[in-house]
């Protein structure tokens, strides 16, 4: 592999590239799915390489799925030509923040390789869940998925880094969709949108209590059909981790991406209200809000040894005691935030896309509340669980989220079930209204597997750890 990588680096150097890197990636993906008893199994190999060069102070990138020496040479020459064309309308030459060079192998730990678990065993598990979910005729769709993803990557840079990494992800999940002809409802487990994913082996799936939670999931989905609509108004609301994770993602993660702050996403995903004068000054949240970026955390989907800039993984505060502190950065843009070193957030969707700033794992640190104490302290409030829909403006200020289920809090416990709960607000007001966070017993890492950004579009995965948290006077219910 080193020889193949060197073809790109020497070709680029001969064409006067001042920097070059190549990432060769072999992905293997297996999805074992079932819908209403019908199996759907797919096995995919996604192999290729991408070459990135700086020529005349500008980036050029080209990629190919044909991993062969002649194609590496051809693709590198294309990247050089693309960079030359870009340089014609480049305002300032690219400046890369300094980083030591690394020669290393790094891999996510696991106990049981999910690719070694036979497909028929996986289908047997899904079949058992399917039977439980469809025991009630109100369930019109029962879907389940077991997912395995191995990403084997090699990265070589003209500065001397040569890094081999193997990232292994496992995922599982199911949902029951119910209907009475007029209303559609859904409950999912462990989280919404198909599956919960982590960097781990099949041991995660075995420990996920999938069978144990199937009947409850089904019964709640059925109960939602006759539940009243969530009331509208201002309510103290406990947001469970299965919803709060996406709130962190949308209202803290994206506005923290420095490329958005600088307007690089102005035409597509959008910009950010956290302008470069805000770090160290913006009271983003209340004093109990501590949000940490961490690409070293166990089981995170954005957990790696090195990012796609060959920068070593890091952990740092984005928000500390409510005060906004640091962005997600890469080597190219770090200096715009007054920083000398990248925070290691440059990531690409596979081999075919150019790396760009993506949020890494971003988690709300646990507080000190016991869950039952928090319920008891929130009389008359609501509990909301599991994200169902999301929407936020392009500056990441005004948001609205929908959840699968909500409960009133009565006599210190979860009471009446409500359907179609939503809440909306503005980011800074929202996080400043947070006054209680449950302790680490209730803290859980939630994976996001469908984060879209960039043109051409790229998908990225990351994890948001959090525990149930209370927000005072939240606007709940569908405003009309």
């Amino acid at each position, binding site marked *: 592999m080193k020889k193949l990588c060197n073809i790109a680096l020497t070709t680029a150097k001969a064409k006067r590239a001042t920097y070059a890197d190549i990432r060769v990636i072999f992905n293997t993906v297996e999805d074992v799915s079932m819908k209403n008893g*019908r199996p759907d199994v797919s096995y995919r190999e996604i192999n290729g390489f991408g070459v990135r060069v700086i020529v005349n102070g500008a980036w050029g990138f080209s990629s190919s799925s044909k991993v062969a020496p002649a194609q590496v040479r051809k693709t590198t020459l294309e990247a050089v030509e693309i960079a030359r064309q870009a340089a014609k309308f480049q305002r300032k030459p690219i400046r890369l923040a300094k980083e030591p060079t690394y020669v290393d192998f790094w891999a996510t730990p696991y106990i049981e390789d999910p690719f070694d678990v036979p497909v028929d065993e996986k289908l047997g598990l899904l079949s058992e869940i399917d039977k439980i979910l469809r025991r009630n005729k109100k369930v019109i769709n029962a879907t389940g998925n077991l997912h395995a993803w191995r990403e084997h990557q090699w990265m070589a840079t003209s500065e001397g880094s040569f890094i081999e990494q193997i990232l292994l992800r496992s995922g599982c999940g199911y949902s029951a969709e119910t209907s009475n002809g007029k209303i559609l409802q859904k409950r999912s487990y462990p989280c919404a949108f198909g599956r919960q994913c982590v960097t781990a082996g099949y041991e995660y799936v075995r420990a996920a209590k999938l069978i144990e939670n199937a009947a409850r999931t089904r019964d709640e989905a059925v109960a939602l059909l006759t539940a009243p609509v969530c009331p509208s108004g201002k309510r103290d609301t406990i947001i469970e981790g299965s919803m709060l994770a996406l709130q962190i993602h949308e209202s803290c993660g994206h506005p923290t991406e420095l490329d958005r702050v600088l307007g690089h996403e102005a035409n597509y995903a959008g910009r950010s209200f956290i302008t470069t004068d805000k770090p160290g000054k913006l009271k983003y949240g209340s004093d109990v809000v501590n949000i940490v970026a961490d690409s070293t955390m166990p089981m995170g989907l954005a957990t790696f040894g090195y990012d796609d800039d060959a920068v070593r993984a890091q952990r740092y505060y984005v928000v500390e005691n409510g005060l906004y502190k640091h962005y997600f950065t890469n080597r190219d843009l770090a200096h715009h935030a007054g920083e000398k070193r990248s925070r290691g957030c440059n990531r690409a969707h596979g081999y075919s896309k150019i790396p760009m700033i993506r949020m890494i794992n971003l988690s709300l640190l646990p507080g000190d509340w016991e869950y039952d104490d928090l319920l008891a302290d929130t009389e008359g409030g609501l509990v909301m669980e599991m994200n169902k829909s999301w929407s936020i403006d392009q500056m990441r200020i005004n948001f609205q989220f929908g959840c699968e289920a909500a409960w009133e809090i009565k006599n210190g416990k979860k009471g009446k079930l409500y359907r179609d709960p939503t809440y909306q607000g503005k980011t800074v007001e929202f996080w400043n209204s947070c006054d209680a966070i449950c302790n680490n017993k209730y803290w859980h890492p939630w994976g996001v597997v469908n984060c879209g950004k960039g043109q051409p579009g790229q998908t990225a995965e990351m994890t948001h750890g959090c525990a149930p948290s209370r927000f005072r006077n939240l606007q709940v219910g569908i405003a009309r």
Partner: protein
Amino acid sequence: MKAKAMQAICKKMLKWTSAPTAEVRIHSFRQGLTRFADNSITQNVQELTDGVTFTARFGNRIGSASSTSVDDASLKRVVSEAERVARAVNPDKDLLPFLGMKKYKKMLGFVRKTADTGPDFRARQVGKVIKAAKAKRLTTAGIYSNSVARIAIANTAGLFVTHANSNASTSITMMTKDSAGWASDGHRDIDKIPIKNVIDTAIDKALKSHKPKAIKPGKYTVILEPDAVSNLLLFLAWGGLNGLALYEKRSCFSGMQNKLVVNPKITLTDDAYHPLQNGMPFDWEGMPRQAVTLIEKGRFIDGVYDRGTAKKAKKKPTGHGQPQPNTWGAFPGNMVVEPGDATLDEMIASLDRGILVTQFHYTNIINPKKLDITGMTRSGTFWVEKGKIKYPIKNMRFTQGVPLALRNVRMVGKDLKNASSLFGGGFVVPPLMIKDFTFSSGTDF
């Protein structure tokens, strides 16, 4: 990859397999995209991806495997993986036999120049955008892109179909310190992108959006430009017009066949053969893609169907299916709204009080059965009074049922555009004037 090379791969794989019946699907995609921001090119990329998917069937057992590597060793591995999976799965009684050759319409999908255009041309076009922005002291961001895609499907029932299409597109945001204006265009023929018009429209909207005023949330008459209309229709396509959703009674139109469901001014078809569309003449099962009337003068006619759902629902397949085993249904990806007779200017001139919306952002479903959705306005939102644009307004969140919005249509524009939104689209639509469109909250810009 050329069609002949695809055919050769198909023949090899179908010969190698031990499965009694099998199918091969091949795709080849090349895209160049130049991205700019802050009046500078920030990203300039090219991608070349080939891929093959092999589906093996042993009776009612089916399995698929795919790879982006198309050398013989990889192709043999893909065949063997698909067979391994197929042998392991439970029998699926809903599977249908693979489809043989059918008659397919020819379509204008491919323009050589679009496929062959390189980074030099894209850089020159982007140069025009940046120059125009600087001349008006604006900051610009956007893309200029060209791509070519070819697919082929072959199976043991004798099917071999192939199709290629090209696409070029640009989208441009122009910004002042407190405003933004956006415009876009796309076509299979790169020479038919009116770059100057797109630049001028984005500049005009940005300049007119300067110093926006806040207005109160509530119900307003709106004029939605085509990109905003396309956004609404995307959710209708997903949740309303998929034959499987109709069959499973998940659709907002389930049980509403031949009933008036939207305003009689609306006629909606799915027509891959429309001159402004860029679809393909068959679906992923090899069925010829038909032009389908979905809504005619406000009456719901029917959705689109894959073969499996059509059989269950006692309908005819329309050529909008996915590969088997398809548990997802069918998608009308080439929708066209029949135009009205008013220009956008005439629509604005006829509006007493209301809001002109350029595009929506980050829209999502709240209630899948009623198809209530929410999203934000973006990059050019204006207050219209007594037939004139009076002033720009700060962006607002809308919360609105799509069928209800289409019931409240008051005018349909005459100028069609192939328009998309953040999460997809590619629908050929005119601007629409809609009464009582609900805005539920505002934002700070």
